[in-house]
């Protein structure tokens, strides 16, 4: 992280945004605490037993992926509204971090499905298929991006695509709740979280840790992309 510290993007205001190293340290500490509590403190689930502890990793990962995509869409809207190309890099970075979290969601979910349902994947579950659709949609974002020459047109096309993607998230949430036949558990309902207080506490801690880690990864990756642009600019003027 030492090499990164000099690269941290400075916010326009210069105050109020913690640096990536601080975020990463806080996130690592929070995640370690959440993992220890998830594995050794919270009571075992009555239905699923020990395997339910994957929940504390899987669900916050999915929510963090959604948050990254939403953040990317917000940056895309800013780009379309202002035409400022720095939002293009920020949107691209947010979507990239979101895709990594989506990969983690699919991987941990698959492991959980194997131990709980006896299969790595099932096509009969709307929740799973819709999340896969969201994931593939954002993978296609990169295909679109790299198929167009760099410039304002690519930035605008990518931004419009990222804004459309955000529509898939509420569809995914609603579909599982409107579906009458599913085996995927629904923990958060209109009546609030359906779990014990200790479980919800560890869930929140894990979500905070993963959110902090996403923020740190975003800042580090954005710094790398800005550096990459600087290298290109230096080479172009030679």
């Amino acid at each position: 992280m030492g090499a990164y510290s000099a690269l941290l993007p400075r916010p326009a205001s210069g105050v109020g945004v913690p640096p990536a190293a601080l975020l990463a340290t806080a996130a690592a500490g929070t995640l370690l605490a959440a993992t220890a509590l998830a594995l050794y403190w919270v009571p075992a689930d009555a239905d699923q037993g020990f395997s339910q502890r994957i929940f504390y990793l899987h669900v916050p990962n999915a929510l963090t992926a959604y948050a990254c995509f939403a953040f990317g869409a917000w940056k895309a809207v800013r780009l379309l509204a202002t035409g400022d190309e720095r939002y293009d890099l920020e949107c691209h970075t947010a979507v990239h971090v979101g895709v990594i979290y989506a990969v983690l969601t699919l991987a941990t979910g698959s492991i959980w499905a194997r131990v709980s349902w006896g299969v790595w994947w099932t096509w009969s579950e709307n929740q799973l298929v819709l999340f896969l659709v969201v994931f593939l949609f954002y993978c296609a974002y990169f295909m679109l991006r790299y198929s167009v020459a760099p410039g304002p047109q690519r930035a605008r096309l990518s931004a419009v695509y990222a804004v459309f993607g955000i529509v898939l998230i509420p569809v995914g949430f609603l579909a599982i709740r409107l579906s009458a036949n599913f085996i995927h558990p629904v923990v958060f309902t209109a009546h609030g979280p359906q779990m014990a207080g200790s479980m919800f506490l560890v869930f929140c801690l894990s979500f905070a840790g993963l959110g902090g880690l996403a923020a740190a990864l975003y800042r580090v990756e954005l710094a790398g992309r800005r550096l990459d642009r600087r290298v290109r600019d230096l080479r172009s003027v030679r």
Partner: protein
Amino acid sequence: MTTAETYVTAAYLVFLGVVLLYVVINSAKVARLEAAVTRLEREDAE
């Protein structure tokens, strides 16, 4: 170790592995770019 414990451990290790891989790839990329910037700036100054 029970079957459930094995799968839970695997899930947490997969998470750790992916995050570490991401950090290693980004570290290598930033180090390469830093070296490129330093070299280009030095060549410009000469």
